[in-house]
């Protein structure tokens, strides 16, 4: 029996089918392309930041051997506070000693490129270990931004050749700079650190959490469990949904017009920043909290009511503990967003140059994202790598928070 083509499968049909299948493949490829492009951009962004940022955790340092037996310095008496011990060493001429030995070792041109505050590094080491005063010690001291640029193949030809000479002698190299995590902002890209901004962020987040979490959870409980269905409740719901969509910069304007008017002395304080961000974070917590509370099955409420619990006991003894993992997940995500927020904090003045870590909730501070913004504006090339390094620190914190949120969601959240 010969096989006959079905009457519908004409040549025209076959051609059309081929076209349709080709269109199908193209469409699928377009979809795949879109996904790959988005993920690719993400990877590109992360890789660029990491490559730049690794350089930010290093700095160019000069090796300077100092023979303290010739210097005639005496250690400060024990028990002296850090600043006064440093002052005593300064009065004894430590800066000149450092400069002298730097010239011995690096030559005049090299010594000139030692960072201005290099002697403080020496002073700190003497204070922690006075025994080094009895011998010769090799110090690794920060070079000036110019020389660091020269080492990186930028800047004037003079600096580049000086850097090449010193590097060939093994006296200048890029070393891991863990001090980046413990110092604060400075005008010199070789001396900056992230700790001041990080501490500011931590204090601000603490205020945000302490305000937004209780208020958000209580509002969610009220709306989900107790609120009567009337116009007031509708107004509350509408305003929460709207607040969640208001641009963050508007909250900055609110903070400026209201909080700073109430507390005029607290410009750029973590307290004000935290209050502003709390208003921004609260709607997020309310919305995720309501979803978590909604997910608790009605049977649990009925069971508790049936054995004589009051309305408040039902909620606080049963519903809230069961909904808590979901609420916490939403809270962490809201806090992560607040941690990365910059614009509202610029409005309330947290962009000041703050060279010391904030002492408390009311002292002037800056936060990580604002620090990144400020550094990105610097002209000195050394700040490019420092900015990327600060971004890495910020991203690590965000990843950590999101990781905790995902863990909580997988570990504790129940499917009823």
């Amino acid at each position, binding site marked *: 029996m010969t096989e006959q083509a079905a009457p519908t499968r004409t040549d025209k049909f076959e051609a059309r089918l081929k076209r349709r299948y080709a269109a199908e493949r193209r469409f*699928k490829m377009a979809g795949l392309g879109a996904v790959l492009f988005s993920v690719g951009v993400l990877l590109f962004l992360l890789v660029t930041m990491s490559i730049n940022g690794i350089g930010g955790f290093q700095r160019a340092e000069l090796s300077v051997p100092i023979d303290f037996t010739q210097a005639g310095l005496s250690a400060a008496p024990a028990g002296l506070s850090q600043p006064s011990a440093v002052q005593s060493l300064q009065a004894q001429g430590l800066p000149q000693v450092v400069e002298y030995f730097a010239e011995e070792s690096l030559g005049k041109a090299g010594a000139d490129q030692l960072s201005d505050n290099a002697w403080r590094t020496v002073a700190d080491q003497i204070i922690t270990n006075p025994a080094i005063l009895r011998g010769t010690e090799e110090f690794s001291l920060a070079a000036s931004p110019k020389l660091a640029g020269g080492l990186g193949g930028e800047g004037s030809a003079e600096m580049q050749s000086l850097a090449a000479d010193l590097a060939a002698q093994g006296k200048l190299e890029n070393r891991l700079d863990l001090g980046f995590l413990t110092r604060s902002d400075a005008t010199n890209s070789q001396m900056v650190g992230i700790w001041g901004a990080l501490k500011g962020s931590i204090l601000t987040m603490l205020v945000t959490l302490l305000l937004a979490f209780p208020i958000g959870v209580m*509002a969610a409980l009220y709306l989900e469990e107790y609120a009567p269905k009337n116009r007031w409740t509708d107004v509350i719901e509408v305003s929460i949904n709207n607040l969640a*969509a208001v641009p963050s910069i508007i909250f900055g304007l609110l903070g400026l*017009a209201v909080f700073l008017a109430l507390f005029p002395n607290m410009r750029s304080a973590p307290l004000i920043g935290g209050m502003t961000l709390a208003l921004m974070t609260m709607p997020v917590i309310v919305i995720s909290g309501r979803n978590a509370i909604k997910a608790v099955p009605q049977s649990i409420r009925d069971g508790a009511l049936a054995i004589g619990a009051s309305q408040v006991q039902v909620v606080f003894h049963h519903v809230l503990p069961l909904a808590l993992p979901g609420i916490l997940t939403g809270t962490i995500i809201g806090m992560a967003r607040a941690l990365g927020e910059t614009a509202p904090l610029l409005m309330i003045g947290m962009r000041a140059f703050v060279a010391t870590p904030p002492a408390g909730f009311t002292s002037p501070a800056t936060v990580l994202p604002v620090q990144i913004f400020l550094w990105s504006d610097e002209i000195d090339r050394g700040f490019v790598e420092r900015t990327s390094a600060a971004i890495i620190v910020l991203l690590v914190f965000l990843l950590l928070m999101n990781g905790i949120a995902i863990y909580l969601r997988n570990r504790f959240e129940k499917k009823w």
Partner: protein
Amino acid sequence: MSPAILLVLALGLGLAGWLAARARAWAFKRDNSAKRIAALPTYHAWYVALWIVIPVVVFIGLWSVIAPQLVTQAVLAAPAAADLPTFGFQRDAILSDARSVAMGDTVGVFNQAANALVEPYRAAISRYNMIGALCTLVIAFLTGVWAFLRVKPNFTARTRVERAVMVILLLASLVAILTTLGIVVSLVFETVRFFGAVSPIDFLFGTHWGPDPMSNPDNPDGTRYGAIPLFWGTIYIGAIIAMIVAIPLGLMSAIYLTQYASPRTRAWIKPALEVLAGVPTVVYGYFAALTVAPAIRDLAFSVGLTNASNESALAAGLVMGIMIIPFVSSMADDSIAAVPQALRDGSLAMGATTSETIRQVLVPAALPGIVAGIMLAVSRAIGETMIVVMAAGAAANLTGNPLEAMTTVTFQIVAMLTGEGSFDHPATLSAFALGFVLFIVTLGLNFIALSVVKRFREVYD
């Protein structure tokens, strides 16, 4: 003593009251073991603790606003304040200088005149701190004792505590309304002040933007406050360039992930897209300024466009579009998933290919949701600040050339409020007017988006 320490003190007193009341209630329970007491001892304890903590917290809140003003008054009354400049910027600078030294925030003063005021400040601060602490103790003691005395076997502590809890919950939910009100009132208030100096017509329809914060504040030049270039820049970057990037990519990603991808792929790609949404905007801004903008400029040079600037609307818009992708994608994802399976099955059963089903059945059915998602995405894009601050530039150009620098509403809000001008200057106030416009527009977009979703959602139910 700072408010923080007072708060800790209040909590400590509350704890003391809690323990005392519980002990007293337990004592009742032991004494009349035959008779039930009206509430569990814990509720008596909470009753007393609430009566201590709430009044004290309210007092501390008020005190932390009032006390600094009282301190300033006391300092001004001191003899050393007699030779201060009568008013103005310098007087404030000297006062805040003296204050921060007295508080121990800084060691030295900038203005030598402030030195004389440090002592009066210190005295006044410690005096009012003492008064604050004393008042806290007195209030806590009075309310605590009053509540404690009401702890009796037949006292219905639980109902009272629960009533208080309900009121507290209600107050917490009112914070949202207060915030909304606060935003509206402060924006309207400052905007009205701004329109007192510059006419709304000039502001809304003028085409030249260039406020001078150093000019005479009483007689601003209205023609320098035309916001049309800002509105145009905002729309061009946020609603046109960003959406040209975000809509196709976001929509196609959502379609691929919901219709084609295997569950395993989906499980990996979706979180990756969420990470894209979680990257802080300042990082995107830095990426735009450091990587994308120079690349675009070089590209423009290489094709012979020599007028390309280092900051361009295109760079900001592209990066903003990438930032918005996950947003569009998740909204589209939700609305496609909400289309009933029967529609899809019917189309496939008729012999349509998957892509034909998607284009001709699923997307049209999901269109209201997708449109709403895009509107929300636009509202987010035009409110985005850091990317445009770092990459779009400050020049208010009214142009269609994406390679030129453009400025946006959010950029100018930041620029006006972080600039040099005094707070009362129309240039500074214009930031609030711009903020008000931004608030109204984003609110309108959200409102329309939500009502579109609500209106068309029920079709298939």
